[in-house]
């Protein structure tokens, strides 16, 4: 499903990201675990095409994304990936349902006339059917992350890229969000790659990839 071979990216003067090998099977639920600055978010960004490697091969769903043009990569990312971020990253001018619809607007995999119904159904699945028209500023942090989960899953992506999704939540909300995320990924048979520095969170996932030693001082 996701395979990296000898991937390298220069991060700054004398600092380089190197991942000799990485593999995740379809439907895997894997934690990318390690301390801050170890390169786990960089790994996730490379897998999802938000960053381009300077060398190596990244194959997602049978496609070597390093060979895709900018526009092809945008399209690929919209179709195959769903994103969940630590700070939720909802768009402030839009309501909860509009935030979910925007996910479909840009991915362009769902016909436009289905957007509203599908967004409403997805928000219902995350327990927010009563908050469809609420703006992000009026939602609790837990609710915001649930809207983000709905947005990530609404296109039925092949991979969910979650970067510290519980990092801004209190323990109770974090546990609830993790329960929801794992349940939905199981239901949708979607691959979950979850970046976390929290070992307890990482231990909740069946697989874990240790990100130690991904970022190195370059050898001149």
């Amino acid at each position: 499903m996701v395979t990296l071979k000898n991937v390298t990216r220069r991060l700054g003067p004398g600092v380089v990201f190197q991942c000799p090998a990485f593999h995740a099977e379809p439907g895997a639920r894997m934690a990318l675990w390690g301390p801050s600055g170890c390169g786990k978010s960089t790994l996730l960004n490379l897998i999802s095409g938000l960053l381009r490697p300077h060398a190596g091969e990244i194959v997602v769903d049978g496609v070597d994304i390093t060979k895709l043009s900018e526009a092809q990569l945008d399209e690929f990312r919209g179709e195959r990936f769903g994103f969940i971020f630590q700070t939720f990253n909802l768009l402030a001018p839009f309501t909860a349902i509009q935030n979910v619809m925007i996910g479909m607007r840009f991915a362009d995999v769902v016909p436009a006339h289905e957007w509203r119904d599908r967004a409403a159904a997805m928000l219902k699945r995350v327990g927010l059917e009563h908050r469809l028209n609420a703006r992000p500023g009026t939602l609790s942090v837990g609710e915001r992350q649930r809207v983000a989960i709905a947005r990530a899953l609404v296109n039925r992506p092949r991979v969910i890229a979650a970067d510290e999704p519980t990092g801004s939540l209190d323990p109770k909300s974090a546990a609830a969000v993790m329960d929801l995320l794992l349940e939905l990924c199981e239901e949708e048979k979607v691959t979950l790659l979850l970046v976390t520095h929290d070992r307890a969170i990482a231990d909740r996932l069946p697989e874990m990839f240790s990100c130690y030693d991904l970022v190195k001082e370059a050898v001149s």
Partner: protein
Amino acid sequence: MSLWHIAWSYLWNRKLTTVLTVFSVALGVGLIVSVLTLREETQRRFEQEGQAFDLVVGAKGNPLQLVLSTVYFLDVPTGNISKDILEALRGMEDVEGVFPVAMGDTYRGFRIIGTTPDLMQFRPGGEHPYALAQGRYWEKPMEAVLGVQVAEESGLQIGDTFRSTHGFVQVPGAEEHDEVYTVVGVMKRSGTPNDRAIFCGIESVWDLHAHHDGDIAGAHEHHPENEVTAVLVKLATPALRFEYRDRINRNYNAMAAIPVQEIQKLYEQLLGTAKTVLLAIGYLVVVISAMSILIGLYMAILQRRRDLAIMRALGATRGEIFGSVLIEAFWVTLLGIAAGQALGMAVCAMLGHYLTQRLGFHLSAIVWSPDLVSALSAVLLMGMMAGILPAWQAYRTDVARDLAEP
């Protein structure tokens, strides 16, 4: 959920900035709309009036003064001419109509025009600017027909009487004639200078000034019935204007002028410069507005780099991001143009009211001239161009970096 909707939502999300930017665009557009509309409309109305008569023949002097005084009732006549010239004009081939006018008096600032009844039946371009709303035309001396504005402002009604004041300028203590005019008719509103004039038989003016030992239009003569202030001439075809003007100027002790030509000269010499200056100011305001669009959007893009990065992560292409910012510039400019149109229309309505009072012209609030369409297109283009730099900034969003920033 189109890019238009997304762009609009971001504008709505920062209402105050958007309103202020729209207002600054509206100021420039309003000025441009006002200047162009007033110029087009006044010129159109002046020329329309000027087209009614092919020539004006009067005493030698300034041809523009002759035209303004006899066609638009604005200036003091250049003097009087002999009635023999009137007879000569009547005998000329290709002359379809000659209408003598005699002036010398006013009533409450409104000019009294002595003429022949056939002028009242004159229908330039199929219009009838002398049509009656009430009463009848004069049938004997000292009967008068009022323009509608005269009736409204003076309160005079059919059957009422009034005494005229000697001269064209209303001054305290001006000498009133003893003779009394009787109102026998009120004209329909024509949107022409006729609305603010009083018409009577030419004999009335002659009689008054004979008794007055006086003058018509300032010329000291004891036999005013031998003179007229001017003659309005309608030729068989406008193509003959120049030929007849030159012929009259060469052969008679009088001056012939072509009203349309004089008015166009006036516009070119006087209002042309004013228009250029005002338009330049309008465009300057629009350029400043475009700068404010640029700065406003640029700052907005800096503030929402993360939002743009999120959209990119969700699958938005660089082109869609570029387009959405450009659409924001389009919305702001379009709203500014719409608000500017409204502002310009309000200004034109106010100035139109003034011009109605001053000139008797009814101006349309807005005239879609090619100049105006070009100017508004230029404003729209400028607004869009102002959006290019912020759109480019958005286009270059570094998704991973902007998502990582706190």
